[in-house]
């Protein structure tokens, strides 16, 4: 069992295959976890397609499986995994984060209150928001 942590949350993938620094997910789970899909043009997400490297397509796509770790490295995004290979984090690059902030659109988020109820920043569109961090430490 492999757990993949991404921007969209945590996904358990029973049929994942880990081999060295490769993380092979069935196409459906690859899309669910990352939004990326294998097409004729290469690996695509929304309007963006990344062509598969000529002669080395099999490093990224084999049949209906996608090596999301290799895809992430190709995209310049951080990939880390636990020593057991059972937990993987597909992170966002500094470039991606910086581009989002450069737009000055406040990134939305959803977090729980003390009773576990979820709230999103976008719930407060139409109000000025003072977003302030604190901690028990």
């Amino acid at each position: 069992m492999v757990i993949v942590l991404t921007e969209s949350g945590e996904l358990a993938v029973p049929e994942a295959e880990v081999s060295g620094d490769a993380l092979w997910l069935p196409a459906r789970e690859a899309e669910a976890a990352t939004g990326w899909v294998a097409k004729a043009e290469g690996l695509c997400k929304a309007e963006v397609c990344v062509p598969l490297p000529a002669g080395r397509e099999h490093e990224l796509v084999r049949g209906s499986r996608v090596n999301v770790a290799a895809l992430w490295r190709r995209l310049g995004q951080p990939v880390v995994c636990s020593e057991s290979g059972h937990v993987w984090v597909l992170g966002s690059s500094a470039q991606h984060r910086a581009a989002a902030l450069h737009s000055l659109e406040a990134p939305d988020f959803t977090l729980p209150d003390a009773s576990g109820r979820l709230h999103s920043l976008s719930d407060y569109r139409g109000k000025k928001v003072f977003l302030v961090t604190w901690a028990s430490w």
Partner: protein
Amino acid sequence: MWQALYEELAGRSFMVIAVAMDSREGDALPWIEAAKPTYLTLIDREHRLAELYGVVNVPQAVWIDEGGRIVRPAEAAGAYEGFRKMNRATRELPEDAARLTAQAKTTYVSALRDWVLRGAESAHAFAADQARAHLPVLTEDVATAQAMFRLGQFLMRHGEREEGDRWLQEASRRHPDSWCIWRQRAGVTELGLAALPDFWGRVDALGDKRYYAPVDMPGMP
């Protein structure tokens, strides 16, 4: 700290969202129960705000206007270096540090009030190019640190405490400016409390470097 201002400005289309950067279950709760704020208090176990907004410490704040636009990116929210001059035995502040600490607080609260009342007309609301100039500098080390922090947190929550702590340690090494990451890790090894001797050691090691980066606001020490 923000409750009084929040009540004062009630009815002005203004919300305070206070987010606890607390990864361990239950750490934030006693504080919330004691303070009983009427504004929104959320818990950010995975430090999502750090990932999205480049938050590195508490208290740091982001000002967001009615259209969801960042008006002031993450900055120290009325906090000041003064605590570094604290007498560590008595926890007393020398007079000048106490004065500057109070000045930082009132300056920040006044600026925030001014913005809530005057919106884009406020001198404290950054125009787009100014806001961009004040965005945090994000490096690939920081991005990798965030991924490692997330992995470490997951492993800690699922019983892999030793490996989890190693990832938190590596995350801190890659993102040394983040007190959020460091303080979270320090808590792990000290049975629930951030190790105070370690904390002062790390603060002292800053030397002349600021604990809270300077805030671009008139009157701010």
